[in-house]
C-alpha cells in the first residue's frame, strides 16, 4: 500500500510531520474546530485519535463509517470520524453483537485507514483491507443512472392549467428499456411516486426522500401567467427541487429497484395520481407526525438495549432544529441582499444625477463612471442573491425535509417494536388461556388454544425478526444518509463558493476600470 501513501496532498503552509501517529492516539476528542489548513493535514499525517464520538455534535461533513474488517485495531478507533474526509463503509452485521455500547464505536472497531493517511496506522495489515473495502463500496455506489428534470412547460389555461416537466434518464442498467429516454411528468406524478414509495418502503425502515411541498399560492400565480419574475422563480425553484428529489430516489439502492420508480421514469403515460390531495406540504408532514404520535402515545417506553438509536435520534432532532434556525437566518440574508440590490440601484441613479450637476468636468465624468460601477454592483448583488437562495437556502430546505424523513424511519422501527410487544402480550394471554383451559379440563377447546399459541409464537418470531431487520436497515440507511449529506453539503458549498469567486473577480475588474477615472480628476 505504498501507493496510497504516495498520494499525499500538495503541501499546505504548515504541514506537520506525519510521525505523530502513536502519541496522538492518546489525544482526546479531536477538535471539531480544525481549520481548513489542518484538515487536509490531518489526512496527510493521518492523525489517529480515539473515538470519543459520543460527545461529538453531529458534523455535517463527517462520515461515521468504518470497515468491518476482522483485523483487530487494538482499541484505536477511527480518527476519521473527526476528519472531514473520512470515508469508510459500515457493515451493519458487526453492530448488533455488542449491546450497550455506541454503535459508532462498534462500527469503527477496525478502522481502515484513509488512503492518504496510511502511514501512521501501525497495523500495516489494516491497509490492504480498507482499500479493498473502498473499492467494493465504490462499485456499490455507482449506480450509473442519471436523471434530469428540465423544460417546464405550461399546459392548458386558467385554473386547470399545470406545468409539465421533461424527465430524462440516462442509464447503463439492464432493467431499463433503453439507455436514454425521457417522459413528461407533472408535479402530482412526483407526489404520487412519493406516496407509493412511502407506503411500501417505510415499513422496512428506509429513508424516503420527500418531494418539494405543494404551494397553492405559487401555482395559482403560474396558472394565471408564467411571465412575471416571481412565477419564473417559483417554477425554477420547483424544477430544481424535483430534480434533486428524483436524483436522491435513484441514488438509493433499494428504491431504484422498486418497479414504481422504473415506471415513473419509463412509462409514457402515467395514470393520474388522485390521492395526492392528501400530500400537500401539511399532509406529508402529517404522515410523519402520525408515526411520532403513535410513538408518543405508547405507554410502554421502548426498552432500548442499543443506545445508538436513542443517541442518533436525538442528534437528528438537534440537527433539524439547528437547520431550521439556519434557514431563518439565510432567509434574512436573501432578503437583505435583495434590499441591497434595490438601494444600490437607487444610489447609482442618484450618483448619475450628481455627476450631471458637477461643474468640474473630470469629476463629473468620474461620478458618472461611479454610477455605472454601482449599477454593475447591483447586478452582482442580484446574482449573489440568487446564489444565496438557490444554492444555500434550498439546500437547507431539502435537508430539513429529509431529516423529517429520517425521524420517520426511526419511528417506523419503534412501531415495529410495538407490534412485536403486542404480539408477545397476546401470546402471553393465549398461554394463560391455555393454562386455564387445562385446569378446567376442556380438551376440544384446548386443541384450539394450542393451535392459537403456535400461531402467535410464529407471529412473535416474525415480528421480532422484522424488528431486528428494520433496525439493521435503519442503521444502514442513516449511515448512508450521513455520507450523502456530507457529500451534498460539500458540493453545494463548493458551488456557492465558485459563484462567489466569480462575483469577486468581476468586482475587482469593475473597480480597476474605475480607478484611472478617479485618478484623472484634476
Amino acid at each position, binding site marked *: 500500500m505504498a501507493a496510497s501513501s504516495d*498520494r499525499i*496532498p500538495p503541501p499546505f503552509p504548515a504541514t506537520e510531520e506525519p510521525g505523530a501517529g502513536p502519541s496522538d492516539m492518546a489525544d482526546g476528542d479531536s477538535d*471539531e474546530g480544525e*481549520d*481548513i489548513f489542518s*484538515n*487536509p493535514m490531518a*489526512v496527510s499525517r493521518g492523525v489517529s485519535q480515539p473515538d470519543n464520538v459520543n460527545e461529538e*455534535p*453531529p458534523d*455535517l*461533513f463527517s462520515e461515521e463509517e468504518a470497515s468491518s474488517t476482522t483485523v483487530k485495531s487494538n482499541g484505536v478507533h477511527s480518527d476519521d470520524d473527526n476528519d*472531514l*474526509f473520512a*470515508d469508510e463503509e459500515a457493515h451493519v452485521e458487526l453492530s448488533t453483537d455488542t449491546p450497550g455500547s455506541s454503535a459508532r464505536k462498534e462500527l469503527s472497531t477496525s478502522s481502515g485507514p*484513509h*488512503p*492518504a493517511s496510511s502511514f501512521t496506522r501501525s497495523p500495516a495489515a489494516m491497509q490492504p483491507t480498507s482499500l479493498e473495502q473502498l*473499492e467494493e463500496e*465504490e462499485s456499490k455506489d455507482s449506480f450509473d443512472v442519471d436523471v434530469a428534470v428540465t423544460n417546464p412547460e405550461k399546459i392548458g389555461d386558467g385554473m386547470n392549467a399545470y406545468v409539465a416537466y421533461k424527465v430524462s434518464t440516462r442509464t447503463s442498467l439492464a432493467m431499463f428499456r433503453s439507455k436514454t429516454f425521457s417522459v413528461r411528468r407533472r408535479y402530482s406524478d412526483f407526489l404520487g411516486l412519493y406516496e407509493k414509495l412511502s407506503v411500501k418502503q417505510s415499513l422496512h425502515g428506509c429513508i424516503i426522500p420527500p418531494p418539494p411541498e405543494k404551494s397553492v399560492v405559487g401555482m395559482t400565480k403560474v396558472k394565471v401567467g408564467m411571465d412575471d419574475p416571481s412565477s419564473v422563480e417559483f417554477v425554477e425553484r420547483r424544477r430544481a427541487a424535483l430534480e434533486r428529489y428524483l436524483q436522491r430516489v435513484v441514488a438509493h439502492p433499494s428504491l431504484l429497484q422498486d418497479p414504481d420508480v422504473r415506471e415513473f421514469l419509463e412509462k409514457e403515460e402515467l395514470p393520474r395520481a388522485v390521492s395526492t390531495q392528501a400530500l400537500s406540504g401539511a399532509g406529508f408532514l402529517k404522515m410523519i407526525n402520525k408515526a411520532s404520535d403513535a410513538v408518543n402515545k405508547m405507554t410502554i417506553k421502548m426498552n432500548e438495549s442499543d443506545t445508538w438509536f436513542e443517541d442518533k435520534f436525538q442528534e437528528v432532532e438537534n*440537527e433539524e432544529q*439547528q437547520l431550521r434556525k*439556519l434557514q431563518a*437566518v439565510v432567509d434574512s*440574508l436573501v432578503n*437583505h*441582499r435583495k*434590499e*441591497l440590490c434595490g*438601494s*444600490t440601484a*437607487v*444610489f447609482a441613479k*442618484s*450618483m448619475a444625477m*450628481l455627476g450631471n*450637476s*458637477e*461643474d*468640474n468636468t473630470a*469629476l463629473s465624468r*468620474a461620478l458618472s463612471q*461611479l454610477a455605472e460601477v454601482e449599477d454593475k454592483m447591483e447586478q452582482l448583488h442580484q446574482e449573489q442573491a440568487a446564489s444565496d437562495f438557490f444554492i444555500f437556502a434550498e439546500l437547507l430546505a431539502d435537508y430539513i425535509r429529509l431529516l423529517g424523513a429520517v425521524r420517520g424511519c426511526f419511528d417506523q422501527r419503534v412501531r415495529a417494536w410495538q407490534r412485536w410487544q403486542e404480539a408477545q402480550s397476546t401470546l402471553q394471554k393465549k398461554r394463560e388461556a391455555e393454562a386455564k383451559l387445562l385446569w378446567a379440563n376442556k380438551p376440544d377447546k384446548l386443541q384450539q388454544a394450542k393451535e392459537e399459541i403456535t400461531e402467535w409464537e410464529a407471529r412473535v418470531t416474525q415480528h421480532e425478526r422484522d424488528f431486528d431487520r428494520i433496525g439493521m436497515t435503519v442503521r444502514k440507511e442513516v449511515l448512508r444518509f450521513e455520507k450523502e449529506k456530507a*457529500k451534498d*453539503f*460539500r458540493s453545494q*458549498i*463548493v458551488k456557492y*463558493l*465558485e459563484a*462567489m*469567486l466569480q462575483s*469577486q473577480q468581476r*468586482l*475587482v475588474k469593475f473597480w*480597476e476600470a474605475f*480607478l484611472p477615472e*478617479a*485618478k484623472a*480628476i484634476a
Partner: protein
Amino acid sequence: MRSVSVDLNHDASLLIDIPDALCERDKVKFTVHTKTTLSSFQKPDFSVPRQHEDFIWLHDTLVETEDYAGLIIPPAPPKPDFESPREKMHKLGEGEATMTKEEYTKMKQELEAEYLAVFKKTVQVHEVFLQRLSSHPNLSKDRNFQIFLEYDQDLTVRRKNAKEMFGGFFKNMVKSADEVLISGIKEVDDFFEQEKTFLLDYYSKIKDSTAKAEKMTRSHKNIADDYIHISATLNSLSADDTTILFVSVQKVEGRVASDQELKLTELLRYYMRDIQAAKDLLYRRARALVDYENSNKALDKARLKSKDIPQAEEHQQQCLQKFDKLSESGKKELTSFKGRRVVAFRKNLIEMAELEIKHAKVSTVVVYLVSSGLVWSQQLVTFK
C-alpha cells in the same frame, strides 16, 4: 475622515488635534490639544477638555460675527450619535436567551466595534472642524476660537451668555426663506450667478445621494450581521470549513460596509454640510444686496423729499461697502472651496476604489482556498 478635507493642520504655527476622548454615558468629552508658536497664546503646548456643545457654541458665534459674513464658516460637527449601536445592544440584550453563548459573544463584539467606529468618527469630525478653523487665514485669529482652545475653565457659563445675547438669531430665522431670497435677486455678477445656480442644484443632489448612500451601507451592515448569525449557527452544527468561509466573508462584507461608509458616505455627508455653509454665504451676500438696494431706494426718497440726505448717502455707502466686501471675500472663498472639493473627492474616490479592489482580492483568495480545500477533499474521497 481626514481625507474629507485635505491640506489641514500643516501650518506649524497652530497645530490642533484631539488625541483622545472619553465617553461618559451619552456625553463625549474631547481632549483638545494645541501646539502653537503664536505669541497670542499663553502657552506653546496645552490641552483642554471640551464637550460637543462647546463646539456648537464656537460655530454659532463665528456665524453671528459680522466680520465673517463673507466667509464660508466650516460646518458644525454633528452631535455624537450612538443611537444605532445602543439600540442594537438593547435588542441583543433582549434576545440573549434565544441565542447561543457564542452567537451572543460574536454579536456583542460586533456591536462594540460599531460603537468604537461611531466614537472614532465623531472624534474625527470634531477634529476636522477645528483644523478647518486653524488653517483659515481669518478664522484662525478669532478671539472666541482662542478662548475655545485655551480657556481652562468650563465654557458652560459663556455658552449660556451667548445664547442670551444672540438668542440664536440667525439660526432661528426661517432658513427656507434664503432659497427664495437667493434665487430672487437680480444678479449682476456672472460668477455669483453661476455659483448660485450650481450650488442650489448641487446641494439638493448631494443631499439625495447622501441619503441613498446611507441606506446602501445599512444594507451592507445588515448582511454582515446575518453572516455573524450564520457562522454562529454553523458552528453549533460543527461544519468547520463553512464556518470559516462565512466568518471571513462576513468580515469582508463588514469591512466593505464600514469602508464604503467611511469613504463615500462621509464624503457626501461632509460636503453636503459644506455646501450648506457656502449657501449661507450666498444668503448673507444676498441679504447685503437687498440692504444696498433698499438703501438706494431710501436715498432716492430722501433726495425727493430733500430730507436727511447725508444720512441716506452714508447709509448707502456703508451698504455698498459691505456688499462689495462680501462679494470680494465670497468670490475668494467659493473659488477655493471648489478646488478643495474636487481634491477631496478625488482622494476619496481613489481610496475607495483601492479598498474595494483590495477587499475583493482578499475575499477571492479566501474563497479560493476554502473551495479548493473542499474540492480537493472531495477528490480524495472518490479516489480509488
